[in-house]
């Protein structure tokens, strides 16, 4: 009797668990129930659905890493808020916030594998190529050609830069990059130096800064080795026409050339003698903090860093007055467009495609470029989005950079945009070996070439 009771109880527990497990299928059961209801009820329900559909805004998805302490977080928020306000009741942007560039890239690559990228994504670090490969990316060129206003604000330069070999355009930027380097005028003055005109003078300046008790360079080799790779790009890009051509090549297959080896040799010395002890393995925030807190004299970075100079929560008070900007030695500047935003709505409903396109237009229009200039120091794509004299007066460092860019002899791209993502990852694990004399510059160039071969 007891055994039977136990079995009955066990069966009851199993049935309860099974019922709980199927609870999630309730909505579909309800749908089936509704199928057997009367015709009039169906019609009434359909009518109500239609009204609901008309009223409900179209939802589109968008992922961003410009959140929290990111330099462009305030600009990003303002643009998205303005879009939501303008399209209230018509389009709703569902935002996924990711806390860092790395987290963003990894998440997008995971989503690309299952063809589930958000409707609009930033195509950096190979994400655009994956979106093209998995069939989600949409060719934006016909839409740009059909919209003269939008096309004028984006400009031919940005369009040509992002065109693929088959003449299609899968991404569009909302800013152009002009990158030189910032230096601490006080430290330079105390050391008795001026921004270097040649690479020999640059190394000599570093030595003098070190002798004067200052750490010359804010470098970092973690993440995408951003500030370090800007120097490498400049060293290669100003190494004659060959170097310039290499730094303007998208996805080079080999790094075994004199310009790269020379650049890496110079960087090896910089990593060993002219930077902070924590530079090897450090992330961007460490390098930025070292410059903002006046622990170092020089940092290579773009104008989006300028708002940080006057932010007392990040920088020493009055730093903005002590910072100058310069071209790289040999009159070089990194000047290129970002990869920008990719429309990933191929195969989606027409209204979703239209809504996402509206969002993309808004993110790259005159207003958005203006907000990113004001709030994040990002330079607009064309003169059709003018930089006012008031802005230049309030942001003299950016104004100086724009002026200097006109004097540059060499202009070239940066490694983050031009190299395969497998190569960018290789930099961060090879720089420590280079810094600790475990490999030579030639070995590192070979490793980079091997990494390029691995990219699929």
């Amino acid at each position, binding site marked *: 009797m007891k055994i039977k009771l136990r*079995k009955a109880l*066990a069966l009851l527990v*199993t049935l309860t668990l*099974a019922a709980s497990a199927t609870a999630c299928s309730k909505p579909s059961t309800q749908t089936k129930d509704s199928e057997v209801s009367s015709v009039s009820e169906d019609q009434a329900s359909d009518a109500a659905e239609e009204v609901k559909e008309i009223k409900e805004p179209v939802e589109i998805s968008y992922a961003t890493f410009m959140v929290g302490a990111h330099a462009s977080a305030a600009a990003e928020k303002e643009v998205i808020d303005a879009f939501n306000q303008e399209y209230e009741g018509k389009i709703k942007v569902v935002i996924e916030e990711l806390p860092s560039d790395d987290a963003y*890239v*990894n998440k997008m*690559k*995971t989503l*690309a*594998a299952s063809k589930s990228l958000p409707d609009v994504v930033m195509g950096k670090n*190979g994400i655009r*190529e*994956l979106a*093209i*490969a*998995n069939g989600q990316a949409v060719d934006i060129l016909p839409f740009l050609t059909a919209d003269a206003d939008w096309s004028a604000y984006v400009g031919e330069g940005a369009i040509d830069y992002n065109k693929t070999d088959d003449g299609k355009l899968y991404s569009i930027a909302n800013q152009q990059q002009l990158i030189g380097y910032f230096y601490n005028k006080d430290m330079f003055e105390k050391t008795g130096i001026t921004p270097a005109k040649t690479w020999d003078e640059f190394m000599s300046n570093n030595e003098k800064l070190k002798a004067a008790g200052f750490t010359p360079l804010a470098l970092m*080799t*973690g993440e995408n080795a951003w500030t370090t790779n800007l120097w490498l790009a400049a060293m290669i890009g100003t190494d004659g026409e060959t170097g310039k051509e290499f730094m303007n090549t998208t996805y080079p297959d080999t790094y075994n050339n004199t310009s790269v080896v020379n650049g890496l040799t110079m960087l090896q010395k910089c990593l060993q003698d002219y930077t*902070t*002890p*924590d530079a*090897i*393995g450090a992330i961007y925030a460490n390098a930025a903090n070292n410059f903002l807190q006046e622990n170092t004299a020089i940092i290579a970075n773009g104008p989006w860093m300028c708002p940080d100079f006057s932010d007392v929560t990040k920088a020493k008070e009055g730093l903005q007055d002590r910072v100058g900007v310069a071209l790289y030695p040999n009159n070089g500047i990194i000047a290129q467009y970002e990869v920008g935003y990719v429309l990933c709505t191929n195969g989606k409903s027409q209204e979703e495609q239209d809504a996402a396109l509206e969002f993309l237009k808004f993110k790259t229009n005159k207003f958005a470029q203006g907000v990113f200039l004001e709030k994040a120091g990002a330079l607009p794509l064309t003169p059709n989005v003018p930089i006012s004299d008031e802005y230049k007066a309030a942001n003299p460092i950016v104004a100086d950079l724009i002026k200097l860019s006109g004097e540059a002899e060499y202009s070239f791209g940066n490694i983050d945009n031009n190299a395969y*993502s*497998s190569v*960018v*990852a290789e930099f*961060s*694990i*090879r720089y*420590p*070996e280079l*810094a*600790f004399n*475990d*490999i030579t510059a030639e070995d590192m160039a070979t490793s980079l070439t091997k990494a390029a071969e*691995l*990219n*699929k």
Partner: protein
Amino acid sequence: MSKNRKWVVIFLTPGLLLFAFAFLSSVVVLFTSSFMSWSIGSDISFTGLSNYIYLFTKDEGFIKSLYNTLIWIVLQATLHVVIGTGLALILAKKRWYSNAVRTIFFIPNIISSAALGMLFLCIMNPQFGMVNNLISKITGEAFHQNWFMDPKTAFLAVTMTWLPYAGLVTILVIAEMSSISDEIYEAAKIDGASSFQTDLYIVLPLMKNIIGTATVLAATSMLQKLDIIMMTTSGGPGDRTMNLPMYLYRTVFTNNDYALANTQGVILSTLGIVTLLSIRMIYKMDKEE
């Protein structure tokens, strides 16, 4: 008997179905795709054993990752278990500090690996880290060793983020020790055995199965280490701290090579099974004493 069999079938079926759909199907995909060429945007095609041949004959990064993983498995299965068991034997004597030490020693096991990685990055930071500061204080000279990034110390630094923290082993062994009858200890005492002799000749042999289980857990945990390596070194400098999970992750996310990553996954799973069977064999875990 037949009634019992019916109930066994009824109770096992849901679990087996779940296993088949959620796990077995993934294993089948993993295994079959290891014989293919597969990356986003390219057609999947059969390539036979080429992925396996490539990994074992041409891929230096993979060989280094496999080597590092094996070293860590051996270290974890030996030193880590010895530390945990040794501490359990000390704490089981129920001294005044036993509870406090047991709790403190277990803390690293309850902190997430990512947080632990951040913690060690700070402790071993070359500029302001506690370790360098301590050495500076002792020697009286500035000390800026970059523990995680110097090729000479990176492997040791990463190993030290998990090797000494054997709290789980200690807890398991202490729990098992509580089942030993007091009469056994009394008999040993009457026979004149010292505390050390009692532990060595009586307690440890009785703990064989739980130590075997702890060894399996410790060794196989090395097949899952990803987050703490990613937080500290990302497998660098070079591939000095690269292990199989980290290399697999890189193969997928930076090289976009899904088939090669799945081949590594098959090898990783096989390594797990071999590790498990070897430890069971060494400890003779399936044999009753």
